[in-house]
């Protein structure tokens, strides 16, 4: 048996060094209808596939093989000065597995979870620094999440799970050569070479659950920090400082002899920063039919990397004297530089409850509710940047229907869980320090409507 334990632990370590996960829209929208309906306060009380996000230790809490899937949608009604900010709705599918096993008395479990937005696997967007944007909701949800975890239960009261993560988008380098007709761009004959990388970033996620008595459990989970870096370089032609360069661009202007041109563009920005987080929670079954959960999450927003990226542009044209009066080449084109975001850490309190409303030999119905409060980490935007955010008050409710007598086809249960969530973002007034600021003073606020359905097969 000792050999078996060593084998599983070795395997777990290998998996911790290797599992895959991607960015986390679940920070905002949650994962799995039961967990969302309970306000996300499930660090100490989760055992379905959403444990891959909330606490991987929960994967080894139950003994059933679970296969789940569902769909969710979020509508943003976010406004600035009363006008809609047109933050895109988000919708997609979630799927997951919990595969428990044991070697002798040693219990372990493997978990897998996927969140797939409907329209794109992943989206990054960087905007000019002065353009107002809902920094936490405009684009951060448009990510795929793919997580694989392993959990072990070395003793009955202690559950440990972990995995690590991820991917990054992207770096692209483009080199262009050929003839560029500056009178008629469509007549240009350009060729390109491409070097593009989607590079991977890894971040850890580990969690524990402690169950001192069946009615009481505690959970602690740590999620690491990561961000998506987006770099693009486009080089058209050869600079004056590049003797021997083989990708010249000739500029054509009517019947004049061709002359040399060079255009270089570099942009780099950070998208979808996810801060490290630590959640500590408890769950108490007051009666066999009723459970309450509470927890608090520390979110390290102060490490936030500015979404305002670096960009540079270089333009060199060996203009013939006869064209000097017709085409003006700026001597210098200003780029952009990152501006510190100066976010603040925050603590997010969460509470949730679940009650058994009805049960007979065929069906069980549960009702759920939850609440959490997120204080905005973004300071007053009095300067050049306009990163919009307000506090968020979030209420959720849910209903679970479990069919528990499906033998002989299924020795287990088939459950359907529904969740509805409402988020209120109270108005926040921003006053710019400069009277000539192009954005000016504004009031931002709004609400979100989120809903979804999850189905799960549990094999006993």
């Amino acid at each position, binding site marked *: 048996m000792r050999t078996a334990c060593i084998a599983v632990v070795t395997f777990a370590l290998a998996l911790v060094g290797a599992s895959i996960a991607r960015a986390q829209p679940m920070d905002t929208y949650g994962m799995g209808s039961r967990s969302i309906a309970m306000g996300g306060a499930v660090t100490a009380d989760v055992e379905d596939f959403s444990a891959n996000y909330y606490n991987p230790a929960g994967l080894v809490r139950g003994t059933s093989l679970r296969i789940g899937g569902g769909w969710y949608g979020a509508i943003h009604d976010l406004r600035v000065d009363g006008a809609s900010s047109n933050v895109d709705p988000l919708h997609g599918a979630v799927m997951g597995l919990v595969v428990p096993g044991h070697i002798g008395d040693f219990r372990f479990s493997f978990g897998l979870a996927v969140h797939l937005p409907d329209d794109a696997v992943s*989206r990054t967007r960087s905007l000019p620094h002065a353009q107002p944007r809902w920094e936490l909701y405009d684009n951060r949800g448009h990510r795929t999440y793919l997580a694989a975890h392993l959990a072990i239960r070395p003793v009955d009261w202690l559950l440990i799970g972990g995995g690590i993560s991820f991917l990054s988008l992207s770096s692209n380098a483009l080199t262009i050569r050929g003839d560029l007709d500056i009178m008629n761009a469509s007549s240009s004959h350009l060729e390109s070479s491409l070097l*593009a990388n989607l590079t*991977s970033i890894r971040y850890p996620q580990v969690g524990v659950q402690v169950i001192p008595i069946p009615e009481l459990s505690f959970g602690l989970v740590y999620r690491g920090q990561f961000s998506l870096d987006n770099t693009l370089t486009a080089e058209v032609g050869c600079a004056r400082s590049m003797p021997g360069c083989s990708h010249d661009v000739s500029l054509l202007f009517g019947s004049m002899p061709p002359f040399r041109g060079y255009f270089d563009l570099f942009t780099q920005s950070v998208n979808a920063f996810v801060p490290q987080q630590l959640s500590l929670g408890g769950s108490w079954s007051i009666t066999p039919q009723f459970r309450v959960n509470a927890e608090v999450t520390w979110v390290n927003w102060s490490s936030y990397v500015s979404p305002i990226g670096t960009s540079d542009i270089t333009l060199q044209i060996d203009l013939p004297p006869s064209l000097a009066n017709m085409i003006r080449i700026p001597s210098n084109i200003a780029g952009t530089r990152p501006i510190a975001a100066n976010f603040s850490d925050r603590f997010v309190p969460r509470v949730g409850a679940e009650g058994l409303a009805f049960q007979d030999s065929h069906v069980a119905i549960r009702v759920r509710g939850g609440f959490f409060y997120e204080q905005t980490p973004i300071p007053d935007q009095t300067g050049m940047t306009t990163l919009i955010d307000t506090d968020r008050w979030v209420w959720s409710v849910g209903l679970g229907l479990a069919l528990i007598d499906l033998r002989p086809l299924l020795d287990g249960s088939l459950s359907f869980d529904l969740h509805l969530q409402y988020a209120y973002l109270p108005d926040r007034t921003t006053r710019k320090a400069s009277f000539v600021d192009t954005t000016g003073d504004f009031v931002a606020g709004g609400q979100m409507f989120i809903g979804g359905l999850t189905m799960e097969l549990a094999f006993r």
Partner: protein
Amino acid sequence: MGMTGVSWSDNWEAVYTNPAGLARVHRREIEIGLGGGTYQLSIDGQRFPVEPPRGMTIGFALPLPFGDVLRDRLVLAGGFYTPANVLLRGHVDFAEVPQWSVADRAQSLAINVGLGIDLSDVVPGLHLGLGVSALANVVGDLTVRLDETHAFQSVVETQLLASFSPIAGVAIDQPNWGLGLVYRHEVRSEMNLHIVVSDLPVMLPVLTIGALVQYDPAQAAIEGYYRFDPNLRLVVNVTWRLWSYFPGPYHPTTDGSFLPPAPQFHDTASPRVALEGTLHCGNADLVIRGGYALELSPSPGAFFGPQRNADGSNVTMPDGSLVAAPLRIIDNDRHVLTLGLGITYRFSQNERLHIDLWGQLHAMADRTHLISLTATAPSTGGPPGLVSGGYIVVGGWMMGLEF
């Protein structure tokens, strides 16, 4: 095992080799592995640098414990391969620059999911399987604008879109022999980033960063195995790859851009053979595997061909003659020798740990191409064609639990 498995795969790897093989899985399993290699490729005797592949694999297989008519019927499985440092790498150079577009295809995240169906109660030994492979496509826009103060503003938006390709297979097991047949649809990953620059003193057209950065052709494989005795198995496989549908990696940079010659790839058939022997020792099994595959090149080699317009038609001179341009997609026939060693330890009837080591040597047959490394135009009596060759060594390990 000589890159075989269509007829005999009996673990999660069947999601790729032949999903029908998943129906042979009777225990839950998870597996993890690491692999890497080195490229020693040469052109005209000079080493040609190619970044070696290195990545990790995670797989699982899950017999679904339904009852009644679905008892021991369905097996769900998934496999993920992710390169160590990149999830998708695309490198498409100018057409006249030599590039190993076929051999250098391993730098991409691959996701496979499959379902095996055991129909042995209908036809003895019959299994069916279905699966999908997913790969990422990248699309996006970069808009650059110069304002009145000569400061420029940029808006960048990129999206990863998933594309899915089906895999379907059938397998039959009999006491001493088995057959398998699988079809895998083509898998492609494209990049299309558009750069729009406005308000510059010269007019730039919309620039497209576009390429077909990853392409696996549609392929069909038929394979059979025979057991001389319960511990010795011979496998024979033929795999067809429909490379003739390969459109080439290039997308036009602008609407008026010229494209290099079409790659003129042709379909290939790859014969493979493998042998597997098993030794038993108490609770442990030792498995020794070896194989050989002949991978014929689909590429006509480096050549001069007709340059094309953005719409694919040939570029013509005013006198109607074609414009010749070089295309140096380098590839060689490969002799692939494989060797593997596996150890399985049984904790009990249903619980096992196994560790597998594997290695491959890809020996490139020297090839003399139609054009030299430096020729820029067709000519008679020019320098001899470039010579490509070399070898690739890859290897790795897998560790899995069955329970």
